[in-house]
């Protein structure tokens, strides 16, 4: 299977721009995967950068790299989550980020409460919330990242906020 590579076009290795993106974005991408619910955010962030590295010379412009990276993290996190659902049919132990809503309420803390609420949101709503309110992306960037229309982003954000308002009320509203 060691076929010759003579016909393979020379590949442009990513350079300083890739390195700078890695240094500035690795931890952010790892945390993005975590907030999206992945249980192996480090692996997802690493795998995303490997894919970006391999496709660097196919990107039309280096400034598209950040968008490609976000899309890859979102897609890998979604894939990971889907399979976790299968694994957890007979869970060995409850992951820390799957605190039940009841436990969260008893804890009375915003932080664990939000975990439970986020975990209960439909996948697309959770993605939109995290991209908008943690990564501070605008609607166009969210639409590009998720591969959906801007109008869908607006509607999904609205539904997600309505769900959050119900499930995660202000202390005075509880």
């Amino acid at each position, binding site marked *: 299977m060691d076929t010759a590579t003579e016909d393979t076009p020379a590949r442009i290795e990513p350079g300083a721009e890739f390195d700078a993106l890695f240094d500035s974005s690795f*931890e952010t991408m790892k945390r993005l995967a975590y907030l999206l619910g992945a249980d192996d955010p480090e692996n997802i962030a690493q795998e995303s950068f*490997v894919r970006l590295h*391999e496709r660097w010379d196919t990107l039309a412009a280096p400034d598209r790299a950040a968008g490609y990276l976000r899309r890859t993290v979102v*897609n890998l996190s979604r894939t990971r989550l889907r399979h976790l659902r299968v694994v957890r049919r*007979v869970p060995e132990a409850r992951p820390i980020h799957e605190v039940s809503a009841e436990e969260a309420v008893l804890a009375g803390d*915003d932080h664990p409460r*939000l975990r439970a609420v986020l975990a209960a949101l439909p996948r697309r709503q959770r993605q939109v919330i995290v991209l908008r309110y*943690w990564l501070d992306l605008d609607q166009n960037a969210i639409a590009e990242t998720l591969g959906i229309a801007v109008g869908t982003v607006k509607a999904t954000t609205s539904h997600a906020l309505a769900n959050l308002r119900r499930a995660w009320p202000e202390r005075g509203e509880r």
Partner: protein
Amino acid sequence: MPELEDRLRAALTTMAEDVPESRDPRGDLDRRLAASRRSRHRLPTLAAAAAATVALAGVVAPVALDRGDPVRAGQAPSTSTESREDWRAEWPGFATPPLPLPLGREPESGLRLGLAYLENAEVGWLLYELGEPGPHPPQWREPMAGLDLERAVLAPRSPLEMATQLEAPPDLLAELEGLVVVFARDDVASMTARRGAGTPARIPSMLDGLSGKHFLFDLDGPVDGAVFTAHDARGDVLATVTG
């Protein structure tokens, strides 16, 4: 609503800080890239399709269905020309997932099914294991990762090969969405699949060149909720896996 948004931002920031900083992310990346480079040089471009098929089938086929057969459970792969460690080096994405079951060890009991499926221009890969009932509770386990199409389970001259182009036409990708390949060992005589809605999955004719024993299904939609059932030659159910 602004109060809610402010609380959301603050809580998400706090949640994100739960994740500790990595100790040597650049070193980890360099190791993965080195493994990827070796793979690229060894399996160039589309010619990699056949090799990838061998590598995948080599891992999955020998472990596909091992229930109640302690002699066979310990057998070495019989359809592969590559060792498992070779395979792991070639596929760096598989090197570090949190595997509850090391790929290099055969289970004492239990059965496994490998699944590959296409979604959003990427081939996903699953390996399920269902433990035997008994002193230990049954468990689902799954080493998995998303795979690039360039490295995917491809058959030369199949429509999937065309999809290896990064700019594959959306209509082609849409056509391939929901395609599922189930790898199984030789003692699986037949398989059926039902979509999440309960209707039987269509069986397409593509991927005829795929190595190893496999069954193809077209779910015409997501793999979520689909049920795959493997039968032996007598028609008895060997395994059921829900996607």
